[in-house]
């Protein structure tokens, strides 16, 4: 091996290190955190009738806090044996040197638990309702007055669903006190084959409450939600050729939308203010092109003028004059960015493989997308990109086929579809690729979109 070879290897290593550092940096910017706080989440107990639902409650609370991506979970096996259930249970050490009189904050803040935060509490039944007494501590503080972040009483029906609600509400308060945007209340819409055909379904952010939205008895897919979470636009074959339909999520009714006379009207999405729809249509003949119109389909304006397929347009949520879309104008489908007036067309992906499914991060700086780069056609992996610099990070690495990423309102989570478990299902994960979680099991489930 001569000097030249060594130099080349060194150069390659340097490049790899620089790339790694750069990627980590982008994910960190998205995750907006360096070191994660450690949280210990002991199991709560319930008195009387409430106890039967505590399994669900404890699992939900743990899941919500873990899924926030804001914490490192302290291993349960290391928890102290004495777990307080309320503020009165704490016993500060006394004497010199201080001697333990019972449960105290340092039991949790010192090794091996080394926690920063601790929620405690218990449930009971009051007037037929399930009630939660919740307490939340920063156990690194020296005394109870400083350690207690808040305590609060929560009420819900005495059912399994009620216990889940108590846990969601408590977790949401914990996260909001720590300045973390919570996903509680957010919805995921997706396409499911479980009832035959393809219909749009909706569920909570954690996969609970799966409910059918459309009943069109056809192939209906590609849902896209308005920024305020009140409307859903999608593509359906219910009228023969693919056409656009808009639903109110408040009334679950169809809203009027005029489809262009064309063989294809598809992949609609809303402008940030919810007043416009951008979609793909063959209204002018030739390949499908992008158009904008009002939410009722009137006021049509053509946006792209290529002789190739242009599809999957998405307005930048922070800049309605900018959008990304998928186009075959350079050969295989790639992701492009363009101003809505047709200026500044930029191809964002390198031209390798097939790059599809762009989804804007809520801050309008990043996109997530699916790309076959480095894999055979059809084997998509998820990537994120800083749109300004075209810097990319790969989030999945060949674990099946991963498609249709969509950002959660918190900007830290992604929902996507993957066949890694054998069939195509809806999964969530953090933007650093960790905490992957399967939310659906029945039938095939795909094309998820995360809504407020």
């Amino acid at each position, binding site marked *: 091996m001569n000097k030249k070879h060594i130099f080349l290897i060194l150069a390659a290593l340097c490049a790899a290190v620089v790339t790694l550092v750069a990627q980590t940096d982008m994910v960190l910017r998205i995750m907006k955190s360096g070191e994660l706080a450690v949280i210990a989440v002991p199991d709560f107990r319930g008195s009387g009738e409430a106890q039967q639902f505590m399994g669900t409650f404890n699992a939900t609370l743990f899941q919500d806090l873990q899924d926030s991506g804001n914490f490192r979970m302290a291993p349960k096996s290391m928890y102290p044996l004495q777990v307080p259930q309320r503020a009165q249970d704490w016993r500060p050490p006394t004497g010199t040197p201080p001697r333990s009189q019972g449960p105290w904050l340092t039991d949790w803040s010192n090794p091996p638990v080394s926690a920063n935060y601790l929620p405690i509490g218990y449930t009971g039944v009051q007037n037929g309702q399930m009630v939660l007494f919740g307490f939340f501590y920063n156990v690194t503080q020296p005394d109870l007055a400083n350690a207690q972040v808040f305590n609060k009483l929560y009420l819900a029906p005495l059912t399994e669903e009620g216990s889940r609600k108590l846990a969601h509400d408590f977790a949401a308060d914990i996260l909001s006190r720590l300045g973390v945007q919570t996903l509680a209340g957010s919805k995921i819409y997706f396409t499911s084959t479980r009832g035959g055909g393809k219909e749009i379904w909706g569920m909570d952010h954690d996969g609970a409450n799966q409910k059918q939205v459309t009943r069109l008895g056809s192939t209906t897919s590609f849902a896209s939600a308005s920024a305020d979470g009140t409307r859903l636009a999608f593509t359906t074959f219910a009228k023969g050729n*693919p056409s656009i339909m808009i639903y109110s999520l408040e009334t679950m009714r169809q809203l009027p939308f005029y489809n262009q006379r064309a063989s294809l009207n*598809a992949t609609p999405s809303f402008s940030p203010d919810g007043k416009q729809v951008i979609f793909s249509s*063959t209204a002018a003949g030739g390949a499908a092109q992008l158009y904008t119109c009002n939410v009722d389909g009137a006021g049509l304006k053509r946006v792209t003028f290529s002789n190739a*397929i242009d599809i*999957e347009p998405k307005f930048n949520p922070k800049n309605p004059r900018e959008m990304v879309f*998928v186009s*075959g104008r350079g050969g295989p489908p790639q992701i492009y960015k363009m101003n809505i007036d047709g200026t500044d067309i930029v191809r964002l992906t390198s031209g390798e493989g*097939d790059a599809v*499914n762009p989804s804007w991060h809520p801050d309008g700086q990043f996109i997530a997308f699916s790309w076959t780069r480095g894999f055979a056609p059809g084997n998509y992996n998820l990537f994120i990109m800083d749109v300004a610099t075209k810097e990319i990070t790969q989030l999945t690495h060949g674990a099946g086929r991963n498609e249709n990423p969509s950002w959660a309102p918190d900007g830290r989570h992604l929902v996507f579809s993957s066949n890694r478990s054998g069939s195509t299902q809806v999964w969530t994960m953090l933007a650093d690729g960790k905490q992957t979680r399967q939310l659906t099991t029945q039938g095939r489930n795909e094309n998820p979109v995360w809504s407020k």
Partner: protein
Amino acid sequence: MLSAQVREKNSELVSGRDCLEMIRTKKFTWLILACILVAFAAGCKKKPPPAPPPPPPPPAPKAEVAPAKPVVSTFSAQPSSIQRGQSSTLRWNVSGADSVSIDNGIGVVSASGTRSVSPSSSTTYTLTARNAGGATTSQASVSVSDPPPPPPPPVQPKATVSLDERLRTEVADIYFDYDKYDVREDARSVLSRNSDALKRILADFPNASISVEGHCDERGSAEYNLGLGDRRSTSAKEFLTQLGVAGDRLRTISFGKEKPQCSDANEDCYQKNRRVHFSAGQ
């Protein structure tokens, strides 16, 4: 010259109108009288020669002499040619007959009359008028022609071979390369054969339209494949239209990868799915 004549005619018309106006106003009654006189004068300008005196009356018939045969002054069929199913009117007038009859099932009739007949084929009617002096016959013909054939009944699809069946057996799918929508060499010959079959089928099913379905394999994204399937169906339709198939009866529709033919993950199966398929339109 010509314009002068026209003017002259116009002036005549004008004078005529004036004349009417005069009549209406009764102001110039004498003029009307004058007009009438002039008209009479005009009418009598060329008087025919005076009528010859009537011929002397025929000599009175002698009793012992046989009476003259009846006289058939008219026997006609109006109209004389009809289409089958229509009718014609026989009209006759006979004088000096004791009995009058018409053949072809009409029988004894009065000396003069009419009868509507509706023969099914060309017929010659014979009228026979008799008296003591003998019989006089006269003939009238009605020629009957076949009506034009009725319009053909609307063509119904033959119950035994449905449109679907015809499309399935006579029109073949064509296949495409990955992420491509141009018509391949092998697909060109298939489309040429399809164009002949489609022309026959469209002629046999004049009310039918045919869906030209574009399909894709499972590898591309579902969204992009919608656009790609649309291009494939449009390519096939344009090719067929060039070969003379009625474009307004071919409807393009893209199913993207929503209706695969085959679901294995290998190239054989992918190729089967990258196709344009022809089906009965909705």
